[in-house]
């Protein structure tokens, strides 16, 4: 009996202060750290190009920040809905979970709609008025690369969250999977907070 207990204890993975509670969570964090470096490289590159340029328009005057402030609001609200969705599924309240994750996805889709409108307006009216295009002007190039890279992440997040919503309702995913999807979604929100400041406000 005691021998079996010893054997069982040996079969258990070793705990250390560094062992995470969940390997899936650690995996997502490692991915996000790499992703953060992609964004970090782009933002640092943006800063250097802007610093080195003689003429750089005041972003607020070209881009307008009211719509973007609303987009920031959308992503923050969407993040809050995501944490509420996680809290709901941890309490086994599936109806509430469906409502909040649905709202999270809706927030992401609305964000993308606003961005599509913004890009269309900039490319079709605002930039031609100023005589610049995204191929001949660093301000425009860096703007579209940064917001575009982020927009791709939002698109990926909307697809990811939709898959999670379906998988939970089919009984394949549980709270821990929702938490990992949440990490990605909050990261996208976090990066937008930085882009909003560096690209639009500064």
């Amino acid at each position, binding site marked *: 009996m005691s021998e079996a207990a010893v054997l069982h204890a040996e079969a258990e993975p070793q705990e250390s202060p560094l062992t995470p509670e969940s390997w899936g969570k*650690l995996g997502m964090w490692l991915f996000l750290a790499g992703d953060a470096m992609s964004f970090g490289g782009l*933002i*640092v590159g943006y*800063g250097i190009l802007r610093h080195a340029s003689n003429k750089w328009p005041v972003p607020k005057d070209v881009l307008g920040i009211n719509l973007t402030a609303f987009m920031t609001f959308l992503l923050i609200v969407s*993040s*809050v809905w995501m944490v*509420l969705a996680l809290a709901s599924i941890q309490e086994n309240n599936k109806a509430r979970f469906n409502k909040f994750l649905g709202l999270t996805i809706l927030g992401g889709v609305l964000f993308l709609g606003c961005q599509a409108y913004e890009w269309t307006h900039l490319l079709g009216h605002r930039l031609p008025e100023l005589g610049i295009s995204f191929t001949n002007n660093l301000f425009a190039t860096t703007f579209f690369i940064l917001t575009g890279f982020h927009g791709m992440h939002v698109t990926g997040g909307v697809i990811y969250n939709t898959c999670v919503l379906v998988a939970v309702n089919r009984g394949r995913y549980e709270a821990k999977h929702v938490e990992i999807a949440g990490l990605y979604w909050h990261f996208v929100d976090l990066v937008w*907070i930085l882009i909003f400041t560096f690209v639009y406000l500064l």
Partner: protein
Amino acid sequence: MSSASHSASNYIKIFYILLVLTIVEVAIVYLGLPKMLLAALLIIFAVWKAALVAMHFMHLKFEKRTLALVAITPFVLCVFLILMLMPDIFPH
């Protein structure tokens, strides 16, 4: 299961702080402050908001040290990136 202990009211509080910080950010842009002061304030607010999201929504405050180490790595590397590019940013 430890993360289940956060109540929804906690998240709502963070939401209001983020909302107020965003409104303040947009407002000070219209104030016409000196450029350096404005930049410093905006960066402080942005880092503050990003930290709130990471600490509370991403539960970093309640996680083991491993994840905090993973999370801090890209920021350290970005500081290195800026330092290494200094000679190009400020020639002479």
